Each structure stands twice: as C-alpha cells, then as structure tokens.
C-alpha cells in the first residue's frame, strides 16, 4: 500500500503551521510504503505532480483549520470528495495560482483537476493562535502527540 502523508499550511504562523511542522518531523520516520512531504505549495502544481507519479492508494493530509471549534480540537475523517459548483472551484483555482495555501483549497483544486487517490484522509486541528511566530499555543502543544498519532492511525490499512 502506497500512502502519501502531507502537511499543509504556511510556516511561521504558530498553530497555523502544524501541517508543515509535522511533515518535517515525520519525514525521517517514513517507511513501509509511507512517504511524507510538505504539500504547502500551490495545489495546481500539486495536482500536476500527483498526476505524473505512480498512483497512491491513500493520501493523508494534516493541517490547522479555523472552523470555530474549541482550540485544540483534533478531528480525523475520510474526505467525502464532494466538490462545490463550478464558480466556486474556479475561485479556488484563482486563489491557488495567486498564492493561497490552505487545506480546503487543496482538496477542492486537486479534487477538480485530478491527482487525488480515492482514499483521502484528513487530520484537522483547530488552532488557538495563528499569529506570526514559531512554536505552538499551550492548547496545541498539549495535543501534539494526539495529532501525530492521528496521522499515523490514518495511514493504517
């Protein structure tokens, strides 16, 4: 089974950077068909890259996303692959090519343009602090082990 684990987010934005931080941290531990990469680049490029590679059986994405949940909330789920209407997708493509990096943007753009495996798993973390800087808020710091475990769990058959 080939699995790609990817962190998504901007660097140096405290909790908002948990995706790239984890992809750096987990890269050395990748083994047994699991690859780890920082996928924090524009999703049109990611879609093109994925379409050129041998297909993955599963993609696991990890990112901080503000959705109004209590800070530190960790959610792991299988993405349902549902896409918005054409105008909304086009808006996301425009954002992608002009530099926006986010989990939702990646899912929609790659979902529309191709390259994603059927099985896409997501580990989301609700950030407490997305201000500029390194390190995490206490709420996220306390959950780092849980987030890492959620990522590894998502890679298992």
């Amino acid at each position, binding site marked *: 089974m080939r699995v790609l684990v990817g962190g998504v987010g901007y660097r140096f934005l405290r909790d908002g950077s948990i995706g790239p931080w984890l992809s750096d941290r987990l890269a050395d531990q990748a083994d047994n068909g699991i690859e780890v990469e920082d996928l924090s680049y*524009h999703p*049109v*490029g990611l879609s*093109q890259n994925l379409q050129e590679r041998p297909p993955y059986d599963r993609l696991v994405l990890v990112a901080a996303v503000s959705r109004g949940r209590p800070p530190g909330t960790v959610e792991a789920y299988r993405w349902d692959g549902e896409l918005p209407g*054409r105008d909304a*997708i*086009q*808006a996301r*493509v*425009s954002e992608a*090519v*002009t*530099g*926006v990096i986010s989990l939702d943007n990646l899912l929609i753009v790659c979902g*529309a*343009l191709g390259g994603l495996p059927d099985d896409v798993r997501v580990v989301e973390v609700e950030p407490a602090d997305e*201000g*500029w*800087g390194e390190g995490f808020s206490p709420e996220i710091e306390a959950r780092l082990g849980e987030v890492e475990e959620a990522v590894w769990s998502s890679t298992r058959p």
Partner: protein
Amino acid sequence: MCFKNLPIEFDEEGNARLKEGVANPYSYEVQEAPTPIEENEEKLQELLARNGHIRRVDFDPVTRVAGALAFHTVVDLENRSVLETNSMATLFRGYEVILKGRDPRDAIFISSRACGVCGGVHSTCSALALEMAFGIHPPPMGVVARNILLSLEYLYDHPLHLFLLAGPDFSEPAVRETNPELWARAQGTPAPRKDVHGFGTLAEIMTEMTPLTGKLYAEALHMTRVAREAYVLIGGKYPHPQTIVPGGISATIDVSDLNEIHLRIAKFFDYGQKVVAIWDDLTEFFYEANPQYADVGKRPARLIEPGQWDDPYAYDGTFENADEWGRKRWAPPAVIVDGELVTTKLSQLNMGIEEFVEHSFYEDWTSNGNGGPQFPTDPAGNPLSPWHPWNKETIPKPGGTNWKEKYSWSTSPRWDRMSMETGAYSRIYANALAEDYSHLNYIEPTGSSLKFNVPGATLPSAELEWKIPQTWGAFERNRGRAYCIVYSALIAYENVLLGLDLMRKGETKTSVPHEVPKDFRIGAGFWGAGRGYLTHHIVMDKGVIENYQIVTPSTWMASPSDPFGNPGPYEEAVAATPVLENFEKPEDYKGIDILRAIRSFDPCMPCTTHIHTDSRVIKREVVTCACGVEDDHDH
C-alpha cells in the same frame, strides 16, 4: 522638456537642476476632491428614487485577483456610463515596516513574499538595490541567469492571466450570460487565424476558454508548469527562489541546465504564436461587433517602464552609470506620455517619482518636523522630491473610509505628477517606440510597432507584429500581454544562447563575493514584474536596513486620487468604460465591462496583514470592505 510639472530644468549639458527662484519648489496645494455622489445617504436615496437606473455597484473583493482589491462604482444604466469610481487596496502591506533594522540580505527573501505569483522579481529587484548599495555587480553569467529567470516568470505569469484570471470574462458562459447577441454572432463568425490556433469559429475559442472544462484553460495551466519546471533549474523553487544573492545567483549553471531550459522555452514559441492568434481574433471580433469595445478600460497611453533584462556586459550596478546600462536593457527604461516617448533615462525616470498619501491610510512623512528631506539629490546630484521613495517613510494611519478623504491602503505614485500605468505591455510599447534598439536579434522596433521573428518549433517560423493601437484600452492590454509571451520567450532564448557562449569562453562564474558594508549606503533596484514596474529603494547604515521602500505595479495602478485631482489608472479606466452589457432589468446587471476593464490591468495586490515589530505581531485583518461612506467603517 522632460518634466512639465516638476520644478526641474536641465542645463546645456543635460544636467538636471531645480528651477531657479522658486521658493518651495516641490510644494503643492491640495485640490479638493470632487463631491462624491454618495456624500450622504439622503442625496443617494433621492437619486435612486428619481432614477432606478442609477446603481451603486461594489465589487468586494474583485475576484480572480491576487490579494485584496475592492472597487466602488456608481453606474447610470440608462445612459450606460460610469458616474463615479473608487479603487481600494483593502489591506496594509507592511514590508517596509518589517524590513527595518534587518540585515539587508534578508530583503531578498522577505520581499519575495510580497507576492505568491511573482515573488522572484522582488528577490531580484532587491538584489539589484543591494548591489548598488554594496558597490558590486554580477559576472556576465549571473546576469544572464537572472534574465532567464525573469523571462520564465513572465512565461508563467502571462498565460495565467490571459486564460485563468482575465480569460473567463471572454469565455462562453460569460459572453452567453452578459451579451447573448455576441454569443449568437460568435457562432457564425469564422476565426481568421484558425491555421495557427486550430479553432474554426469565435464561439469555439470562447468555449475553450471556459474555466475548468475549456482546452485553452487547461493548456494554460499546463504551460505554467512548463515555465515553472524551467525556472526551478536555476531558481531552486518557485515562486520564491532560493538562489538570488547580491552579486548574482548562488547556483551553478552547466550546459545541460541551459539545454533543459531551451527545450521548454521552445514550447513557448508555438504557444506564443497560438495565444497571439487567439487574442487577435477575439479583439477583432469584439471591435467589429461593436467599436465601443475599444473604449472599455480606455485611458491615455501614459505608461512607465523601468526597463529590464540587463546587458551582461554593460550592467555595473552603479547609479552614476544607470543611464548607460539602463539604455542597454532588452526592454528600455521609458516614460510614455500620451503615446510619446518622453525619456529612456533611468535617472530621469527615478527623478520624477513621488508618492502621495492624501487619499491613503498613511501620514505624510514630510510634516514630521525633521527639516528638509533626507536626500535632496540622488547619488548623481539630480534633484529629488521630498515625496520620492528614498525620502519616504511608511507611517500607517488607519481610519474611516471617506471617498473625499482617505479610502485606500495604496499610496498614489505619480511621475511628473501624472498618474501612470504599467504592465507587461509597457515593455513592448517602450520597445516599439525606441527605434534605435539595434542589439535585439529577434525583435525589431519600428517606432510604431514591434516585429518578432519567432523561430519554428512544431509550428513554422513566423514574423509577428504588434502595432501600437490608436486607442489604449482593456482589449489592447490583453492583446499586448499575449504578444509579451512571444517577447519574453525570445529574450529568454537570446539569453540561453548568450549563456552557452559564455560557457564556451569558460566564463561560468555566476556570482561575486560580497560583504555587507557597515557605513551609510543607499541603493535602488529597477526591474519588472509580470504586471510591470517594480522598484526597491534602500537606505542602510551600520550593516542594517534603515529604510526600504517598494513600489509595485499595482501601487501605481490601484492608486487612489492624487492631491492634484487626478484619479488612479483603474479609476480613470473604469470611469471611461461604456456599459455594453445586455440586460433587461437593472437587477440583472453583472458589471462585465467594468470587470473586463479592471482585470485587463492584471491587478495583483501585494498582500500581507502581518506587521513585525520588536514586540512581534501588532495587527491582522485590517479591513476588507468596499462599503459606502454611510456605512462608517473604521480600518
């Protein structure tokens, strides 16, 4: 005479000086802004009650634009004209503040983050500014490498704009919805250049420009990849390269790198021909259907172009010689006023720049009580305005929006106190007018046009000719940008050939060593971005940045009105735009002509909401609202 409005004259030897006998040569009186239709809600309601065809149409944000641009208009749908316009940069770009006190080399990497589309141009512009300040310049191969990178950024950028950002406004769904009569006409109109692009009718072209499903849309996405693939061979990554350093680039280049790049550039010979044919056919179709389309986004041809792509044997990084090495760039530095070439001297271009803040959320730094400007002259002794970027301080002053007073985070850059436009097309416009540009091998300026000798790839070789248009408007901006794909590919090709020649001579060094000077220095980078003009001005002392000022294309073009009463270019262009959209009821109005006008400039609002101080973050999410004045929003 170069300047009509600034108090600068030239002696018999051509040296600039302030006019004699003028007490406060740069002083000015602020002209009161016209009274906005919406000065108060009561007046607006009265207008609306009298005439339901007068509508306030706000675009917030203007979509398919990088960053945060909002646009406020009042439109008379009965007379089909735009009554009032205001362009708003709705976010604060704090790079000038972020860079203060840093190692100057940080500017190369930090300023790159001003844009997620064309970060590399900021890196290079920053390196140019540092080279002037440090007193160094790259070896020829370093210059060639930067030239190639610049072209490749444009080969990424122009297709992206033409088919992903502006293109959808000309696609089947947009035309069907806003002008169904044009769609019907397009179905029966054979495409004159089918032999080049392969589409039989104008309707086929429009269909293939449809977002997500159109072949032209998909092909543009693919071509942006081709350009990026070539870019990373030298730049390391895109859009924020890792190899730009003061004095050249930190990567080595070998024959296989140049060959790999050449293979990709050659694809743009074909693609460029095809894109030119598409936009020539589209433009002619709209003009023939209704000549008023030439007036969409119309404004006088007043353009500013700092010049770009340095001659590897001429560029020495000094300000004193800037007129010499500037004149030898592939695209000449140029100021064009009402279609006439006013200057090709970088010193004069630099001398004429001022930034005003009467309608921007900043304080005027000249009223800080420090006495006169820090730099009354440039390093060559030419006079500088107190409002010149070398003298500028960035002092944010958020406040409520008021169309008569302050309404934008963009300043109002002006040259000789005139609003200027810039873009990919300003390169070819300048190049077309500068007839004596004889060092170009594949590009021939004629004074009224620019001829391109495009080598054959899968399509046969061809001679293309971009002609300076009679009317400067939205369609010509897009058409000009299409020709710029060919232009950029040919300059990239010439530089690959130069690189191979340097390799044969053993001149493979790509950079020179440098040290950060500890004494007081100033420098400036004059370069280009996908959207045109880009300058970085630096003042440094004790090894750190004392002041850093960036003027981007969108600062020029999204600017609010200036103190002399001149609107910014977006505002001016939209105000001149006729309403040609076909709608039955006012509520069906989409504003397609206004959007075509705005997007033709390829707006890109350098964006950040994060400002770094010693105490770290001080502000985020400044404002994203283009609401009317009556809404009383604080920023």
